C-alpha cells in the first residue's frame, strides 16, 4: 500500500460516490453538480497516475465546458430546479445490467491483476506526449478536428431548424 494507492482509493471512493449520486438524485441540477465532483475526482486520479496533461484537459474540457453545457441545457429545457418525481424508470433491469456490467468488469480486473504492484516509470512529460500526438497519431488528430467541426456545424443545424427550412416561415 503506497501513498499512490491510498490516494487512488480515496479519489476513487469520491468519484464512485458522486457518480452514484449523479444517477440517483432527484434534482437535475444537482446531478450536474455531482458530475463535476466525479469528474474532478477522476482528474485527480489522472494526476496520481502521472498523466498530467490528461488531468488538466479533463478539468478544462469536462468540468469547464461539458458540464457548463449540460447546465445550460438544463436551463433551456426548463427542467425543474427542485426535486422531480418522474426522472426515473423502474430500477430493476437497470440495476441488473448496470450492476452486472460493473461488478463483472471489476471481477475480471481483480482476477487479472490480483494485488500485484507496478512501479511508476518516468513521470508524465507533456513534450513526449506532444511528439506522440503529432507524430504517430497525427492523422487521427486531424480527422478528429474535422469531426469537431462537423459536430459544431451539426449542433448548430440541429438546434436551429430555421436554418435549413426551405420556406423560411418557421417562426422565431
Amino acid at each position, binding site marked *: 500500500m503506497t501513498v499512490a494507492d491510498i490516494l487512488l482509493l480515496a479519489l476513487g471512493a469520491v468519484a464512485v460516490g458522486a457518480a452514484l449520486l449523479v444517477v440517483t438524485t432527484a434534482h437535475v441540477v444537482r446531478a450536474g453538480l455531482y458530475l463535476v465532483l466525479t469528474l474532478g475526482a477522476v482528474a485527480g486520479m489522472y494526476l496520481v497516475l502521472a498523466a498530467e496533461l*490528461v488531468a488538466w484537459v479533463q478539468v478544462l474540457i*469536462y468540468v469547464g465546458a461539458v458540464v457548463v453545457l449540460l447546465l445550460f441545457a438544463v436551463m433551456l429545457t426548463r427542467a425543474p430546479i427542485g426535486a422531480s418525481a418522474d426522472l*426515473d424508470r423502474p430500477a430493476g433491469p*437497470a440495476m441488473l445490467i448496470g450492476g452486472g456490467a460493473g461488478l463483472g468488469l471489476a471481477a475480471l480486473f481483480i482476477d487479472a491483476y490480483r494485488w500485484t504492484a507496478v512501479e511508476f516509470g518516468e513521470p508524465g512529460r507533456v513534450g513526449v506526449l506532444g511528439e506522440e500526438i503529432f507524430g504517430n497519431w497525427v492523422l487521427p488528430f486531424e480527422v478528429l478536428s474535422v469531426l469537431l467541426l462537423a459536430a459544431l456545424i451539426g449542433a448548430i443545424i440541429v438546434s436551429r431548424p430555421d436554418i435549413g427550412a426551405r420556406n423560411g416561415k418557421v417562426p422565431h
Partner: protein
Amino acid sequence: MRPVIPYVIAALLFGIGVYGVLRRRHAILLLMAVELMLNAVNIVLVTAATTVQATLAAAGVGTPYTGHVFALFIIVIAAAEVGVGLAIVLQLFRLRSSAAVDTVPLSDPDPPPDAAHATAAEPDPPTAEAVPR
C-alpha cells in the same frame, strides 16, 4: 502502485454509468450517465498506459503515452458528442416540450387504427413551433 485499484474504480464507474443510462428518463441525465461511462474508459486507458509503460519500457517495446493520447481523443469526442447530443435534446424538447426519451418512436408508426394517435406520434415541425418559448 496497484493497478487493480483504478481498474476496479473504472469498472464501478462504468457500471454506474450503465445503470444511469437505463434508469434515467431525462435526456440530459442520460448524457451525464454516458459521460460517466466515457470517464471509466479513460481511467482504464490511462492506467493501462501507466502500467504498460512501467512494465514494457524497460524492454524497449511499446509506445508510451498511447493510452494518454486515446484518453485525450476520447475527451474531445465526448465534448463533440455532448454538443451534438444537447442540440438534439433541445430540438426534442422543442418538439415535445419534454426531454424524456421514453416517448420517442424509433420507426414510422404502423398504419394507424385511429388518426388522432397517428398525428400525435408524427413529428410535425409547424405544430411543434406552437410550443411557447
